[in-house]
Structures are given as C-alpha cells and as structure tokens.
C-alpha cells in the first residue's frame, strides 16, 4: 500500500487542501434499526447503546482528536413515497457529542411529539 503526500489538490479549475479533505471526510458513520435495535452497516463503530426509546449512543473505535464535532443524522421509515433512510416530514432529530469516542442521538416522531425508534436511522460525524 502506497502513500500519496500533497498539500493541495488542483484540477486546474478548483483547488482543495489536504486538510480540507482530511477534516471534511466523515470519520464515523452508522446506519441502524432503532426498533430492534441493530446496526445495519457502519464504519469506525464499536457498539450501539440503547439508552431509551429514540435515544441511542454510538461508541467509536478510533477517537476523534476533539470532543466537539458535527453530527449529521436522519431518521425515517419505509412508507409510500418516502425513500428508505431519508428524513421524512414526521421526524425530527438531534445529536450531542458526549466525548471524543461517543455521541448520543435522539429521534422524535413529530405527529405524537414523543421520542420514537425509527427503522432507518443514519448518523455520520465530521471533525478532526
């Protein structure tokens, strides 16, 4: 396996720094079924902790450098007209970084205004 070392990537139209690629690439992603719960697919995840209905902690295998980072999250169910895994109008989500090695997500059903376990819950983390 070789190593490519560079500071800037330039295609003669656009340029991007190596730092932007490194810090802008998701370090973690996790797709899970909150109703079982079970992890469907993932990267850099060691485990999923079911805290309560609609509340899950994703534990990481490789820590981030910092404990403040961006968490992207969507939740949805397979219903007519809605792409599986995509955020649907009936859900609202939130995420919180617990540490450099874990973050907790909350998913709500907007219709009942209560926490809810979604079949398709997807998370990703961007940060150094």
């Amino acid at each position: 396996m070789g190593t490519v070392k560079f500071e800037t990537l330039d295609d003669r139209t656009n340029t991007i720094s190596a730092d932007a690629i490194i810090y802008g690439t998701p370090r973690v992603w996790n797709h899970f079924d909150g109703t079982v719960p079970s992890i469907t697919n993932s990267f850099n995840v060691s485990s999923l902790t079911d805290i309560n209905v609609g509340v899950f902690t994703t534990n990481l295998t490789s820590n981030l450098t910092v404990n403040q980072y961006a968490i992207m999250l969507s939740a949805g169910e397979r219903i007519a007209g809605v792409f599986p895994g995509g955020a649907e109008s009936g859900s609202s989500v939130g995420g919180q970084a617990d540490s450099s090695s874990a973050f907790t997500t909350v998913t709500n059903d907007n219709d009942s205004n209560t926490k809810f376990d979604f079949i398709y819950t997807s998370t990703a983390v961007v940060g150094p």
Partner: protein
Amino acid sequence: MKTLDERLMWAKQNLDPIRSDYRVVFENPDELNMSIDANASVKVLTPDPNWMAAALHGNILPPVWVYWELAKDEAQPGFTKHTRLHLLHETEPVEAMTEEEAMEYLVMKDIPSEIWDTRANRPRFKICRMSQIPSDRQFRAAWALAA
C-alpha cells in the same frame, strides 16, 4: 505498523461482519435513585458487527487500556484536544479474542467504569443473549435489571 484507521479500513474491506447474539444490559443506580432523568432506564449495548469481526480476527484493535488513558486525558480540566492519539495507532494491537472475551473488552471500553469497576451489593451489568431481552419495546422505559 498501520494506523488504527488503516487497520479498520482493511477489516471493513476484508472481513465479513459478525452479528453477535450477545448483549450487555447495564444500569446506573445513581441515575435510577435520583429519578429525575427521563433517560434513567436500563441500557442495552449491542456490539458492532464490523468491530466484532475485527476483535475475533486479532491484530487490529488496540488494548483496552489505551482508551482508558485517552479518557483520563479528556477528563482533565481545560481539555481541548488529544495529544496522545498515537497510543491508538502505535500500541501493539491485541491478538484474536473469543466472542466472550470481546464482550468483556467492550464492557470495559464502552460502559462507564463506575458500572463495572466497583463492588456493589448486586451486579450493575449482565452479559446476556439477545433472546433474553424483551422484543416488545412498548414498555421500554420501564425495563430494569433483574436481581
């Protein structure tokens, strides 16, 4: 030696995920006694299938004490960023574990030490089979660890 991230990527590309039947059920008595936290219910940890494959393969994951050292650093007042992440990448990885050993490793890595590193009147966690956990989540908030 490859970094942990490189080893994880290799595992993702080359190892079949292993869906363990084991779960860890745990509770924090302090949370339960206070009864002010809406999340103060029993918690259930599910191992990641890719992580389990790496654990059983061996030579991928760092020893668990590495995570403890990083947690100590993070607990220091004024922590802004890690300066010892090289421990993850440069410490000799652990050899292949059994599934049971992997679950014990996960307990010590992903569950707060006050849950497992303590002497209590009764266990605060149990490693069990998935079939021993209710599949009906209607009363999820009322789940408790059996004595």
